[in-house]
């Protein structure tokens, strides 16, 4: 990412200049909500992926539908990172940004999105606004941005668009897409295809108009840009698909043979259900929008009890409401998949922003002891495939399975190899032939805790499922010994699953100075940071956990081979400094909490609740700090 130095050497030319090859680029498009900058980012990302670039996109989302215009809080847009190689995270500072007004840029500067030398293209119409306050705000902002060392380019976005359309509000974004295509030498035909795909339903005239704007932005770019780049591609030999994490969850649910998705609207989970609603019917599925979060899981539980595969998709507050039913599914051993697309908490928190704060809630937030399986996909690819795994585990272990993703995965777009769909994934969960009368509905195998379940409709399988303490015949039992034993068998199922797993393999050497442990969407940033530091010759490795309950096997051995172990998590912990007011009451990050209790190893943590994903740079800084402290002791 040494773009700034190379750019400085580029000279202005009268005609289109030759693009400069760079190994990767980070581009941000920010505007008021509703101006279409997300569309620009999405299309730019997909065009890049189709050209063969590694791609990762992150949405910049305001919390309101129509936030005030020209306000930092209302900033909406996209960050796109493209590279020659696979791209796994949003990266550090952006190389290029296009802003539709100066105010929305503040929302990015306060997140350290840019650095000295970042090229910022900004709509220049505000300089000549009839409102003095706007002219003033614009001038003030530009002076401030210049003081940060940004390379500012004021561009006549609206003025140029008005040459082609009467209302620049519609279509300015596509002009910007054209400009970015010129800047990064993108294939305009691919851009046209994506525009058509997005806008076809609005009619041929709209599509044509946008083609004109695309070309206009592109031509303007070629004529006026003083620098251009190309990110060389290394096309994949295998077929690739590109989608965001919520689409991958939805499509994964279809591929896993789920028949019913029962949900209640909640950000940022809902787009997975939107996607399912648009296609589920084709695969014989039904999306139920329940009257509330509790009913959503209750309906899914009913469906599953009746022998049909069901899942529910929610976010943190919804998970909280579902906890009583999750407890019932644990107690009565009802297979069920619950997807929690995590967001900022507590309470309503940061609905559109990323956090990984529901791990402990997923583990513990049901009345009583409620062991269940928890999976955490770390890529878009895994969002798809973990749905198949989740269904299989739920049925095999007769238990709820919680899949924890987050807002970063939900909206992140990344190419991955096209899955090879198997009919086996979709097999019906149970054989409906008559039940063997001599087998109890909970005939627990004492070693594994596993048992088979009868399904309504199965002759001779009649039993009364209950959330009360019960014996193997599902008869209510208040007997101390039975209650102790049934807790054991339910817990044993997790041990059984753990025994079937291989210990996770660290990325890097199996021993060294520092081990960085993560889970979920932070994987790309952690591995990139660790890789960079390893290149400096340091003994640093990382470990990414995909299964959080049961705890993956062999962790104590793996962790004990490093002098320091830290987790990197997007959730809250008190600062480790001895002088911090938290003092002895210091609370650790959620995975660190689990690892400490499980391994007795003094696992520390790097965590933040900024509502944004980790950049590799922050993680590198922390690793360096730890390495330095190791060397000084």
């Amino acid at each position: 990412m040494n773009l700034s130095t190379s750019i400085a050497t580029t000279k202005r030319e009268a005609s289109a200049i030759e693009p400069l090859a760079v190994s990767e680029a980070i581009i941000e498009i920010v505007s008021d909500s509703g101006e279409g900058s997300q569309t620009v980012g999405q299309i730019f990302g997909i065009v890049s992926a189709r050209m063969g670039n590694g791609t990762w996109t992150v949405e910049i989302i305001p919390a309101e539908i129509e936030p005030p215009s020209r306000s930092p809080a209302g900033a909406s847009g996209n960050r796109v990172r493209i590279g020659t190689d696979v791209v796994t995270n949003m990266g550090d500072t952006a190389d290029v940004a296009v802003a539709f007004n100066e105010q929305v840029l503040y929302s990015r500067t306060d997140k350290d999105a840019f650095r000295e030398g970042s090229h910022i293209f900004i709509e220049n119409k505000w300089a000549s606004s009839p409102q003095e306050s706007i002219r003033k705000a614009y001038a003030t902002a530009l002076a401030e941005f210049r003081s940060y060392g940004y390379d500012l380019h004021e561009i006549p976005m609206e003025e140029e668009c008005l040459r082609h359309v009467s209302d620049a509000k519609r279509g300015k974004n596509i002009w910007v897409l054209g400009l970015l295509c010129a800047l990064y030498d993108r294939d305009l035909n691919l851009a046209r295809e994506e525009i058509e795909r997005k806008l076809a339903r609005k009619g041929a005239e709209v599509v044509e108009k946008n083609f004109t704007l695309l070309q206009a932005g592109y031509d303007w770019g070629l004529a006026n840009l003083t620098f251009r780049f190309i990110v060389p591609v290394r096309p994949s030999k295998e077929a690739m698909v590109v989608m965001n994490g919520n689409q991958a969850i939805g499509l994964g649910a279809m591929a896993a043979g789920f028949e019913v998705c029962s949900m209640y609207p909640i950000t940022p989970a809902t787009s997975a259900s939107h996607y399912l609603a648009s296609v589920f019917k084709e695969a014989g599925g039904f999306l139920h929008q329940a009257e509330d979060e509790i009913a959503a899981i209750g309906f899914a539980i009913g469906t599953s009890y009746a022998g049909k595969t069901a899942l529910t998709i929610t976010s943190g507050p919804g998970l909280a409401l579902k906890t009583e039913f999750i407890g019932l599914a644990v107690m009565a051993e009802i297979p069920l998949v619950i997807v929690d697309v995590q967001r900022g908490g507590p309470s309503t928190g940061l609905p559109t922003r990323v956090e990984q704060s529901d791990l402990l809630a997923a583990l513990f937030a049901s009345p009583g002891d409620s062991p269940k399986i928890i999976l955490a996909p770390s890529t878009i690819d895994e969002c798809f495939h973990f749905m198949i795994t989740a269904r299989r585990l739920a049925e095999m272990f007769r238990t709820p399975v919680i899949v924890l993703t987050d807002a970063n995965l939900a909206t992140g777009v990344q190419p991955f190899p096209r899955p090879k769909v198997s009919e086996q994934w979709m097999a019906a969960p149970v054989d409906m032939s008559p039940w063997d009368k001599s087998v109890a509905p909970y005939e627990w195998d004492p070693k594994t805790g596993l048992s088979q379940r009868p399904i309504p409709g199965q002759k001779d399988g009649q039993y009364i499922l209950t959330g009360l303490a019960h014996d193997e015949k599902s008869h209510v039992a208040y007997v101390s010994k039975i209650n102790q034993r049934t807790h054991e068998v339910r817990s044993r199922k997790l041990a059984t699953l753990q025994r079937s797993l291989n210990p996770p393999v660290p990325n890097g050497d199996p021993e060294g100075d520092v081990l960085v442990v993560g889970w979920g969407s932070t994987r790309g940033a952690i591995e990139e940071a660790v890789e960079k530091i390893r290149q400096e010759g340091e003994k640093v490795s990382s470990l990414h956990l995909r299964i959080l309950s049961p705890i993956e096997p062999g962790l104590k051995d793996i962790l004990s081979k490093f002098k320091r172990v830290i987790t990197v998590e997007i959730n809250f912990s008190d600062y480790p400094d001895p002088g911090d007011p938290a003092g002895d009451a210091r609370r650790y990050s959620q995975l660190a909490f689990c690892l400490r209790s499980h391994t007795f190893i003094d696992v520390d943590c790097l965590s933040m609740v900024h509502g944004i994903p980790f950049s590799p740079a922050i993680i590198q800084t922390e690793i360096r700090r730890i390495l330095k402290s190791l060397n000084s002791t």
Partner: protein
Amino acid sequence: MRDKSKPLTTDPSPRFFTLEDYEGQVPRWCSGCGDLPVLTAVQRICRDEQLLPERTVVVSGIGCSSRFPHYMKTYGFHGLHGRAFPVACGIRSRRPDLNIFVATGDGDCCAIGAGHWIHAIRYNMKMVVMLFDNNIYGLTKNQTSPTTAKDANSFTHPEGSFISPLNPIAVTLSIANVSFVAQTVDWNPPHLYATLLAAHRHPGLAFVRILQRCPHFTAKVYEPCQRDPSLLLLMKHPDGIPVDDMVAKIFKNQVDHDPANLLEAQDLAVRKEIYPIGLFYRNESAERYDHFSRYGADMDQSEKVKAVEKELDHFQI
């Protein structure tokens, strides 16, 4: 092994079910509890209709009456307080072949589960809903319920309930897409049986409020109407609940009420000092959510794979 993609075949050997085939564990309700006659009525309906025990599911919430499933020898789901409706709707969603009975109490349905109650009525998925209304929380021992009369004492309101009770029939009749609303009493077995049978045969959600005694905490609530049937108003109509003359003649107060007349039903529902029994309202052509939710239940796996592949084509780059 059977081909799982094919629907269940019916049992080749003829089976005849007696009451015993529907009798589960010995009921542990208190003696004199109004739940007992309801259990008997349901078991008789199962037998008389020869319902396959394995195709019959009783779903309940939590409370005295929610113990109902345990006393049946069918499938049963004794779940969470207030949450019988979503579970029953989920069971119905892909299983048109099952007979579903829901047992819920006045606390379960009208307090903690009130949200689900309203929406289940609107979904109108085929099932029989029995509201066991004894005007009190029994299992947790004598707390005011939404149907407890104003000024009645309980452990939570020792000086009497503050405000007037909710009227479950009036509420249900006001919900969009309501399709069957009836009221009966636990102490008149023929009427109870006839009402539940009509509910079972209704193509949609049949809501039956059963006025019912709790011998421990509300023994006196319905005592006057038990002693004096003139405090009940028998709703009669050729399309209503069929009642034998023998049964009908004990009711001094009778009214002709066409169950197609919703406005009249709403008017009857709010009568003071008298409890109408019989069928308030029936609409067999109300929309049914289960007709939508079961879409695709018989789709075979190769078709599903095709659909997923087609979607992957959309995402392929």
